[in-house]
């Protein structure tokens, strides 16, 4: 580049061109940093204590039901040859499990974050675009077509949808009373209302005409929820929960909430039986399945990490400020006397 700056195009003699703009010139001097560190440290310790206490108060009940060991309650079902196997998980609560109680299923060693797996779906199809029902996206392969018939919803991600079923009973005076599960609003509001749409047409079965169900599914998409006709197709809550891929290979997904009737305040102390319809095979890839009952606080579910981390960082700040203070006292910052 080359330019001549002559008289005619001489720039104004401004503070900017002369690099003399007024400026704030802060410095990380000990006088600012040490009190700052103390303040931040104390604040962090405060938050950390609050988080830690809150997290401790959260009740969590977690049971593995993979059935690997012979004596475990679902051992009989872990054999894939057994169809429609059911197993019972019995547990006793000594005190009230405060509500609202959230019920999760958890999978381990399950890579929902595989790249190819995650891409293996057709977003257009899932948004209810009929064109893509007959011509699913290539990314769905090898679950694009089943014997030439297009699959809806296509792809590995929908195909592998979790299909164990759970029913919770409380033993009241020797009889089993079913604890009502609330399956509404467990998915993202935007997923349910905007992102995923069923194809136009009533009944829903008609809209899915010309397609077939994913090969691993027991029933087609329009019959996912036999009890609630409006909870079918692509806006089935369980389907939506499944479609939001987990970030890490050990994950939980929300299954139901317990918010209704006499259980709205929580699960009272007593004996319970969870009847598990065991369908989902995980032993092939050394996976684990579990169920989790948990209540939540203002900071979400049980999470020790955040509280501890706050405490650690907070105390580090305080320790650092002490160290700096010692350095300061000992060496007397030479220019700040």
């Amino acid at each position, binding site marked *: *580049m080359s*330019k*001549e*700056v002559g*008289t005619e195009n001489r720039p104004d003699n401004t503070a900017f*061109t002369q*690099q003399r*703009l*007024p*400026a704030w*010139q*802060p*410095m*990380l*001097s000990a006088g600012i940093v040490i009190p700052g560190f103390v303040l931040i440290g104390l604040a*962090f310790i405060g938050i950390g204590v609050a988080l830690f206490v809150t997290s401790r108060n959260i009740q969590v009940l977690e049971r593995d039901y993979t059935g690997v060991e012979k004596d475990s309650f679902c051992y009989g079902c872990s054999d894939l040859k057994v169809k429609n196997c059911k197993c019972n998980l019995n547990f006793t609560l000594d005190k009230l499990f405060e509500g609202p109680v*959230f019920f999760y299923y*958890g999978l*381990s060693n399950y890579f929902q*974050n*595989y*790249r190819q*797996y995650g891409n*293996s779906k057709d*977003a*257009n199809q899932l948004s209810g675009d009929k064109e893509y029902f007959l011509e699913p996206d290539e990314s769905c392969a*090898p*679950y694009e077509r089943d014997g030439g018939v297009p699959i809806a919803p296509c792809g590995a991600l929908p195909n592998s949808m979790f299909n164990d079923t759970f029913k919770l009973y409380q033993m009241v005076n020797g009889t089993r009373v079913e604890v009502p599960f609330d399956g509404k*609003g*467990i998915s993202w*509001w*935007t997923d349910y209302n905007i*992102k995923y749409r069923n194809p136009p047409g009533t009944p829903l079965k008609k809209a899915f005409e010309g397609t077939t169900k994913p090969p691993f599914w027991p029933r087609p998409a329009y019959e996912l929820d036999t009890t609630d006709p409006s909870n079918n197709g692509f806006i089935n809550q369980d389907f939506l929960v499944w479609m*939001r*891929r*987990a*970030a*890490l*290979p*050990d994950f*939980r997904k929300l299954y139901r909430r317990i918010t209704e009737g006499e259980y709205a305040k929580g699960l009272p102390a007593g004996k319970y039986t969870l009847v598990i319809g065991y369908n989902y095979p995980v032993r*092939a*890839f*050394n996976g684990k399945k579990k169920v989790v009952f948990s209540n*939540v606080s*203002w*900071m*979400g*579910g049980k*999470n020790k*990490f*955040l509280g501890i*981390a*706050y405490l650690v960082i907070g105390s580090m700040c305080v320790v650092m400020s002490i160290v*700096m203070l010692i*350095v*300061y006292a000992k060496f007397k*910052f030479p*220019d*700040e006397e």
Partner: protein
Amino acid sequence: MLTDVFFTANPPPPPPADLWAPRTCCCARATLKNTAHIYAVAIYTGMETKMALNYQTKTQKRSAVEKSMNAYLVVYLCILIGKALVNTVLKYVWQADPNRDEPWYNDRTAAERDRHIVIRALTDFLAYMVLFNYIIPVSMYVTVEMQKFLGSYFIMWDDDMLDKELDERAIVNTSDLNEELGQVEYVFTDKTGTLTENNMEFIECCVDGHVYVPQAICNGQVMPGSDSMDMIDSSPGPQARESEELFFRALCLCHTVQVKEEETVDGIKHGLHPGKATSFYISSSPDEVALVEGMKRLGFTYLRLKDSHMEILNREDEVERFELLEVLTFDSVRRRMSVIVRASTGEVYLFCKGADSSIFPRVVAGKVEEVRGRVERNAVEGLRTLCVAYRPLSSEQYAEACHLLGAARLALQERERRLAEAYDQIETQLVLLGATAVEDRLQEEAADTVESLHQAGMKVWVLTGDKMETAAATCYASKLFRRGTRVLELTTKRTEEQSLHDALFDLSRTVLRPRAAAGARDPVSSPPGDCGDFGLIIDGATLSAVLQPGQDDSASGSYTEVFLEICRNCSAVLCCRMAPLQKAQIVKLIKASKEHPITLAIGDGANDVSMILEAHVGIGIMGKEGRQAARNSDYAIPKFKHLKKMLLVHGHYYYIRISELVQYFFYKNVCFIFPQFLYQFFCGFSQQPLYDTAYLTLYNISFTSLPILLYSLMEQHINADILKKDPTLYRDISKNCLLRWPIFTYWTVLGVYDALVMFFGAYFLFDNTTFTSNGQIMTSNTQMMFGNWTFGTLVFTVLVFTVTFKLVLDTHYWTWINHFVIWGSLVFFVVFSLLWGGIIWPFLNYQRMYYVFMQMLSSGPAWLSIILLITAGLLPDVVKKVVCRALWPTTTERIQNADKLYRGQLSEFSPLASLRGGQRDPPPPPPANPRRSDPPARLPPSFAAKKKHMFTRWRPKPAYSSFPPLLRFAGGGANGGRGGAYGSAGPETTV
């Protein structure tokens, strides 16, 4: 390219025998005058013309910073490939378990299964390369270019580098080297026109021992008087008057000056005294013009050359005519020229003028001793001296001379040698008339600038074509050699006595001994470049002998080495009698020496071009000798004094700025990509990106680019005035010290640490816990599970804030622009994330980031973890900064502290030495002495004792009364104006 042109003017046609002589040739770019056109023949236009031979090919100059950048880039490229390789290998190790390779939920297509494992591995490797390629900061190069381009405007805009007289500003011809200005270790400067003004002024002449000074007023100052001065009116007597007039006539006749009548002249212009400028004198040598001008002021005016007759207007306003018979042109071997003229009375004279060394041996009469004394005195004072002699020729002698010359000119072989012989025979038996002294005045503040450069740790070399005595005098005047400097000579004179070998080794012993002793005594505290105080003078002939690959191969290599060793230990070197290409050779030699120092060459003339092109940084002065140097340079400045601000302020700033820019860019890309690498361990090595595509693309382009760009344009860690006042601060950044490997490693480690904090912070938050949104905003009392994109968004949010806050911590100069771009980019990131999440435009619902950011922000733990992770990421750096500042403060930090303490008034207090805690006391510089022609002040005996003035910084103003000796001397010089000059120079130089 038409280089050598033969021309013939018409009429009269020159004799055919004269055709191929040098004097009938005119060189390329000659100015055509007195005729509308000429017929010319190009003799030779090939690669061996003088111009082509002296032409230095313009090579791409790259700064040291860029070289560091490239080295870092290679490291990062290795990291990139390493990461991709590690992941590819691990993937196949991991997949060795068939359950992991292809779990039932993630079946491959048949085509994928059939693919050969090598192809699959290769595909995987390339996929990793694509995934991690952001670690190579491509955008850094764009930002660096923008920074350099935009930053160069600040140099051009700088009013401190505006020359009001010339109405010129600094020009930036290449913006690639801004930061190199902060790294200069060797300064090679031309003398004439660079250190000096190249404005020749006739100072005095000496006729038979009587000194004449023209009653002239130079630049508004009366020339200082001297005891031995005779004014013209006090004529010493008729005898002397005769020789005096002969001397004046000789000077009026013995030259090749031409008279130009118009106001404007194409090309070179030597107009003096614009008030009465109806005619100009033009000559290839400014000295001649000065002499003729001086004669005009002494009463003899050269009018014109008309019909081979030179016309002179003498004191009585009579026109005298002399027929110009022969011109024995100047050449650098003889170092003299002569004319043979016939006076109107018929007598034939030979007038000869030349360097003292070439005249005195040929003189047979005249007051040689008196003149010699005067000449030597003048030479020591830095005046350019010439001796004038004459020889009356009888008609026989003239005929013989004509014969000699004619024969030589017509010779077909060895014409030049024969001509030289002829000249030699004719220019004998001279009668000495006297001597002249012409001054080339130092540029204003040249001494101060040279001194500052010295204090800043630079070695200043003066490369000049002038003779040794003159050049040495200029060097003393410009403070290149100080009073304490031991000047070593390596000149032809010395090598005649001693063999070159012995001389070199003698010198190296002299230079190395005290240094070794000092090194043994206190090896740590002696800063580099502060080696005793040696100066070296070397001349061109000796230099070429040193550099010549000699007959004796073993010795020749070591000559160069020894010479370099000597030079390294000299703070100042003067190379005189240099050819243009030799200047470049010297620069090249230093460039190639084992430390590979950064060199800067500064010059104003065409003869400096090759040196300017050769040096790392070439600076041209927009001088009298045309624009060629300025055009070929990297930077052009109006005056030598502007070099000070250019290097000490702009160079320093740009180095600080760009080094932070480079380090920061690598840092932020490590932070960016390392979590993505870690994520591969948790997603089955499936190349799953952690961040959304939009984030991957925009991270370097939008979210983190402007703050660092503006930082690298605006940052001023120290006030510019302080930088200018305390040149030693320049040493703080020498040797590319901010881009050394330890610092680079620190930044990279910091980046990796931040990446670990960000990734594992988010990991533990997500891992097997019910980290959810409690959805207070959207619907009450629901739990919404977060997926992989929320994970990535959380990491990315922490990332953007952490790297921006890291810059916040590093920014020391917060203008409103910095505030605007830093907070603006963070706001932009948030706004963009919301928009991209479809908060306003629901049509974005097809994409995977739909509402992800919004959902994340609706979760309390997300906020808490963002705050936590940012704090954790920045904590070590803050602690490191504070502790280092307290325990091992750099000079820069001390100055910053002090500046803060005195609320920015530090720049008004001059000496900073007391703040430096005795770390690096600059050598006590001698007082400023801007003007050479001030004999009393140059050697003040009492000054040495009093030169260590120490201001305390509590004194409100630098009191001028601290310079009593200076004021007294200035007063003794009967010059009030100069006292003021000292006053202003004082505070900058006294420690």
